[in-house]
C-alpha cells in the first residue's frame, strides 16, 4: 500500500534561470557597540541555487548560519558580500538601500516560530489582507472589489487547509499547526516565486509537523513555488526536499539529491549528523567509539577521501568541490582538507569552547 513519492516531472532546470540563486554570499556580524570592531563570520562564500518548483533543504548544526542565510536572502540583514539573484535579477544592485515591494512580492519567508510570527494584536484576516493590499493582489487595487478580496481570502484559507471562519480569530485561539498554516497563507497571498521556510516545523508538536510538511509539498506540486527548507532534522529534509545542502560553520560543505546524500554522506560532518538522528529502526544503539572517530574526522580531518583520485584535485587552501557518485545526482562534497576559518559558528561541535574572558 505504500508507494514511492512521485516527483513531478520538472522542466530541465539548466535551460531556465533559477528562481533563486545565491553567489558567494558572506556575512559578518559586528558585535559590541560604537567602540568595538569585533566581528563574527556567520556566512562565508555560500553558493546555492534553487530551480523553479524545486525544494532545497538546508541542514546543519545549530549556529551554522542557516537562519543567517535565509535572513540575508530575505533582506532582513545586509550581506557583507556576494550576490542574490531572484529570477536572474541581481536584487542587491537593483534595490540598493531597501528591499523594494517588487522584491517582496517575489520572495516570501515563513518563520520558525508560529507563535511569534503572528502579531497577537491582530486578527488572522489582518495578516492576509495586508499582504494582499501591499502588493495589490486579490483585487485590492480595484475599486469596489471587496467581494473579490473576500473570495481570495477564503481561497487562501482553503489552500492551507483552514476553515474560512477562522479569519475572525486571533492567533492565540489557534493551535500551533494552524498558526503555521496561517503564516504560510500569508506568504502565499503575495503569490511569490520563492518561499524561504526557516525551520517551519521545529516549534510544532510532533503530531502536527508532518501535516505542515505535506502542505508545503502540496504547494510546490500545485503552484510550482520554489522553496528553501531550513531544518536540522535530516529525516524531514529527506522527506520533503528534492535536494539537500549541508551547512557547517557558515559554509556549505555538501550538497546533492536528498536520498542520495543521506544514503551516501561523504563529508564527515554529514556522516556525524546522519548517525546522530535517533532511529528506532536502527539495529543496536549508538556506538561511542564510532562517534568519537566521526567527531575527530569533523574536527580535524587530516585526509581527504578523494586524495588518490586523479580526476579530483585536493586543496587545503581553497574549497574545492569533489563530485560524489553519479553526476546525475548532482552530489558534491567540499574537500575535507579545507578548514573554515575560526571565528565562525559551530557551537555544538565545539563542546568545549574557550572560556569566556
Amino acid at each position, binding site marked *: 500500500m505504500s508507494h514511492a513519492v512521485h516527483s513531478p516531472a520538472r522542466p530541465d532546470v539548466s535551460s531556465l534561470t533559477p528562481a533563486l540563486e545565491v553567489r558567494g554570499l558572506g556575512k559578518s556580524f559586528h558585535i559590541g557597540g560604537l567602540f568595538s570592531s569585533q566581528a563574527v563570520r556567520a556566512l562565508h562564500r555560500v553558493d546555492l541555487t534553487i530551480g523553479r518548483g524545486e525544494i532545497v533543504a538546508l541542514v546543519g548544526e545549530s549556529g551554522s548560519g542557516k537562519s543567517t542565510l535565509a535572513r540575508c536572502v530575505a533582506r532582513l540583514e545586509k550581506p557583507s558580500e556576494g550576490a542574490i539573484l531572484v529570477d536572474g535579477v541581481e536584487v542587491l544592485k537593483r534595490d540598493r538601500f531597501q528591499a523594494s515591494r517588487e522584491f517582496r512580492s517575489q520572495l516570501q519567508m515563513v518563520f520558525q516560530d508560529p507563535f511569534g510570527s503572528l502579531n497577537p494584536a491582530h486578527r488572522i484576516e489582518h495578516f492576509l489582507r495586508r499582504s494582499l493590499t501591499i502588493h495589490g493582489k486579490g483585487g485590492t487595487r480595484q475599486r469596489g472589489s471587496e467581494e473579490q478580496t473576500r473570495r481570495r481570502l477564503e481561497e487562501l484559507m482553503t489552500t492551507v487547509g483552514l476553515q474560512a471562519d477562522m479569519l475572525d480569530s486571533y492567533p492565540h485561539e489557534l493551535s500551533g499547526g494552524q498558526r503555521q498554516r496561517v503564516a504560510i497563507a500569508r506568504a502565499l497571498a503575495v503569490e511569490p516565486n520563492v518561499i524561504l521556510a526557516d525551520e517551519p516545523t521545529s516549534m510544532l508538536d510532533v503530531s502536527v509537523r508532518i501535516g505542515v510538511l505535506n502542505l508545503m509539498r502540496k504547494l510546490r506540486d500545485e503552484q510550482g513555488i520554489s522553496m528553501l527548507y531550513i531544518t536540522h532534522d535530516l529525516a524531514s529534509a529527506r522527506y520533503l526536499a528534492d535536494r539537500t545542502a549541508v551547512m557547517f560553520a557558515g559554509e556549505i560543505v555538501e550538497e546533492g539529491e536528498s536520498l542520495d546524500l543521506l544514503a551516501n554522506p561523504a563529508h564527515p560532518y554529514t556522516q556525524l549528523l546522519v548517525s546522530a538522528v535517533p532511529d*528506532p529502526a536502527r539495529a543496536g544503539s549508538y556506538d561511542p567509539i564510532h562517534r568519537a572517530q566521526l567527531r575527530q574526522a569533523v574536527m580535524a580531518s587530516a585526509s581527504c577521501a578523494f586524495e588518490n583520485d586523479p580526476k579530483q584535485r585536493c586543496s587545503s587552501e581553497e574549497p574545492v568541490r569533489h563530485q560524489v557518485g553519479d553526476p546525475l545526482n548532482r552530489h558534491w562534497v567540499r574537500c575535507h582538507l579545507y578548514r573554515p576559518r575560526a571565528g565562525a559558528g559551530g557551537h555544538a561541535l565545539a563542546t568545549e569552547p574557550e572560556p569566556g574572558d
Partner: protein
Amino acid sequence: MTVSQTSFGSHEPVLDVKNLTVKYIGDSRSTTAVNDVSFSIGAGEVFGLAGESGCGKSTIANSIMRLLKDPAKIAAGSISFGGKDVLAMNQDELRRFRWQDVAMVFQSAMNSLNPVLTIGEQMADIFTTHAGYPRKEALRRAAQLLELVRMDPARLKSYPHQLSGGMRQRAVIAMTVALKPSLLILDEPTTALDVVVQQEIMAQIKDLQRELGFSVLFITHDMSLMVELSHRMAVMYGGRIVETAKAHDIYTAPGHPYTQALMGAFPPLTGPRIPLKGLPDGVKFRNIPDLAGIAPGHFVAPFDADAEAAVLEGAAQ
C-alpha cells in the same frame, strides 16, 4: 482503578504513582492537567513518558518532587517513593528527599542554572547542604562529578553563560547524580539541543545509569528517541495515559490512534519516501476511558476505532 504493571527491573517499584490528579486553579476556571494517572517505575528501569506538548508530563514530574507551585493543586492520588508517602512529608523530610532520593533534570535545563553563580558554587551547594562537607571538599567532589560527564574540572569556575547548551546540560546531569539518587527524572533533557549533542548527552545518561544503577523517568515527545532509550513507556494525551507498554511493543504495534499518529510523524532515514500522516489539526480525543489490557503488559485506553478513523480521515481531507 489501578493497573497492575510489571516493572522491568526488580519487582519492588521505586516509585509508585496512583490515581494522581493535578489541577491548576485559575481565576475563572480550573484545568485538570493530570487526570487520574497511575504508573510505577522499578529499580534500574528506564520509564518513558511521551505525549504532545501540554498533556501534563512536566506536571507529573513536578508532583513527584513536590515542586508544584500555586495555582497547581494535587487534587487526588498518592505518590509513594520506596514505600514512603511523598505527599505526607514535612519540610525537613522533603528537603532530604529531594536530590538524595530523587533528582531531576528540568525541561529548561539551560535556564535552571543560576546565571550569576559559578557552576562550582552551584554544585558545591549540594554537598554542603546535604552531606555537610566543607566548601573545599565539596568543590573537590564537584570536580569529580564534572569528570564523570567528561567535562574539564576547570569549568567549575565558569558561569553558565560561558558554557554551550550541551555543556550546561551535562553540568546539570552531573549535579543530579551527585548524591547517587535512586530515581532520576529527565524532563525533555535534550530539546533545544542539536541532534549531535542530543545523542551524546543521551549516551552519557545511559552510561551513568549503567554505572550507578538508578531508575529513570524519561519525558519527551520525541518518539524515536524514547523508543531507542526506554524499557517501558507510557503515552499521554490530555492529562490521561492512553497507552502503556514495553517500548518496543509500542513501536511495533501502537494501539491507540494517538500513539499511531505519533509514530507516523517521523519520516524514516532509509527506504523510499512514503507519504505520512500525522494527527490532523483539530482532532481531539475527549473523555478518554481507563486503560484496558490488549496484550501482556500492553494497556491501551479503549477507543471507538471506526469513529476515530472517520475523524482522522475527515480532518485530513
